[in-house]
């Protein structure tokens, strides 16, 4: 590990690939970053295994972009150490940048260049050619190839995203960093995008991706929930969901607002939040009996339907946030 930290350029670099199998793709310990008085990142530690799809899930302003800029060597952390592909992110940034594919949060290609010109440009900048690595991007690029003469600025949201991904992949990076790739893209294109990432697995590329959309967590091997610059939890999506500490019930009624207010008045209710077409409820004694139906009926809600439900990532996130903030929504 120490030896690899020296950063070995050129061929030696690849000859030592076998050693890399034991190395984590990213190892971060105690990363903190401040902008003025605001703590953007607070003691972030995590590790990403080689060839896994690792998701950072959290709302806007949680610190995802700052963290990604540190990973891409664009920012220096105030504290902590980060080792990426076995190299130190601060001292060895030149070597690292050759091995990283990065797709920033907003569309960062040249709008006045055509699809083809953008791709060729990024290939040359990384000292390769489109032909050389065509296989890697063919799945993605084939969708937009019919439009290769079109200016990038004139593409639809979904196509821009595919082009950006092709450009980030063209030099066959070992680590692909995607900052909110699905923000602002419609549901169909989002789903396609995740399918494409899935197909990249066979090339052993490590992928880290951020998203504010909790429902995308299930597409990752492992996720870190991040909020206010802190990591709330790191695990597989299934285990994160299973971490929800109580039984969760959904309550439905035609008059949702009245239902929420009525539920909150009941001391037996621990939390009551709207979620989709129902209200997600946890109970103090964690068991459902008829008393809740009776209570609701007595308050004039006769049409309530209560069912036990499986908690989602968002429910768990909420629970962790409350623990972190000490907030409850009981008035």
């Amino acid at each position, binding site marked *: 590990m120490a030896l690899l930290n020296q950063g070995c350029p050129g061929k030696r670099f690849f000859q030592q690939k076998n050693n890399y199998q034991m190395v984590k793709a990213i190892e971060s310990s105690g990363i903190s970053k401040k902008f003025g008085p605001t703590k953007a990142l607070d003691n972030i530690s995590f590790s990403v295994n080689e060839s896994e799809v690792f998701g950072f899930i959290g709302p806007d302003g949680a610190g995802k972009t700052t963290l990604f800029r540190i990973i891409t060597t664009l920012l220096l952390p105030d504290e902590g150490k980060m080792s990426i592909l076995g190299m130190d992110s601060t001292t060895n940034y030149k070597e690292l940048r050759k091995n990283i594919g990065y797709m920033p949060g907003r569309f960062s290609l040249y709008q006045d260049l055509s699809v083809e010109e953008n791709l060729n440009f990024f290939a040359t900048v990384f000292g390769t050619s489109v032909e050389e690595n065509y296989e890697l991007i063919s799945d993605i690029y084939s969708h937009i190839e019919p439009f290769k003469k079109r200016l990038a600025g004139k593409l639809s949201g979904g196509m821009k995203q595919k082009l950006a991904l092709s450009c980030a992949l063209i030099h066959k990076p070992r680590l692909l960093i995607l900052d909110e790739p699905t923000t602002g893209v419609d*549901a*169909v294109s989002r789903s396609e995008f995740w399918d494409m990432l899935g197909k990249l697995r066979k090339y052993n590329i490590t992928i880290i991706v951020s998203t504010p959309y909790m429902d995308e967590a299930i597409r990752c091997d492992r996720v870190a929930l991040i909020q206010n610059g802190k990591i709330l939890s790191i695990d597989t999506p299934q285990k994160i969901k299973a971490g929800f500490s109580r039984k969760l019930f959904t309550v439905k009624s035609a008059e949702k607002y009245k239902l929420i207010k009525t539920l909150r008045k009941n001391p037996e209710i621990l939390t009551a939040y709207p979620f*989709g*077409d129902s209200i997600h409820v946890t109970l103090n004694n964690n068991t459902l009996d008829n008393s809740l139906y009776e209570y609701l009926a007595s308050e004039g809600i006769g049409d309530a339907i209560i069912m036990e439900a499986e908690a989602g990532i968002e429910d768990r996130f909420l629970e962790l946030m409350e623990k972190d903030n000490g907030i409850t929504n009981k008035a």
Partner: protein
Amino acid sequence: MNNTVISVHNLVKKFGSFVANDNLSFEVYAGEIFGFLGANGAGKTTTIRILSGLSKPTSGEVNVAGFDAYDQTEQIKKNIGYMCQKFSLYEDLTVKENIILYGGIYGMSRSLIRKRLIELLAKLRFQEYENRMISDLPLGLRQKLAFSVAVLHEPKIVFLDEPTGGVDPITRRQFWESIYETASRGITVFVTTHYMDEAEYCDRISIMNDGKIVALDTPENLKKQYNAGTVEEVFIKIARPV
């Protein structure tokens, strides 16, 4: 629930030879939370512009809050509120200044603005923020305030464009609570989004594709009809991108 506040019959909007809205017909009722979904470029924005009096239909009947979308656009504008994720409040003004500004824009009296300001700050537990710049507020608070400002003048309909994109789960749920509260007061909430999880919260949703409405029902019925677990699955089944 059957007071119609938006009624659209055979709406067509063309830009040259391009048909952005192709014979749309739908109704929205008072106090309803109506989700207006569609892929990028499906024609949602065109419809919203017509419904909010910013653009005139090519043909068809459109009535919003009792006014005609051809020649009563000024009355329409007075009776609707609008909030979008990107722009809503002036960042270099304080909370109070923003509220006074918007109240003034909608022609509310000074005393009424004062009254609503106090109510609003109390309701949002916002008192300590009264004289803070919007730019100093966390995103979640801004979003809640923006919504409250959009309904400050008690419009008949409020249009929300991707209202909870990117906010944290707590804020999002609080936000939807205030939407429910607003709807329970009889204000119609018209939500456009391409995030399907936002659609799940709506009373009814319509899905637009290629200028046409291809589905319109409650989320529950649509999920049943298309044998899907989520609205997102429904959407992927019927709205292939252009």
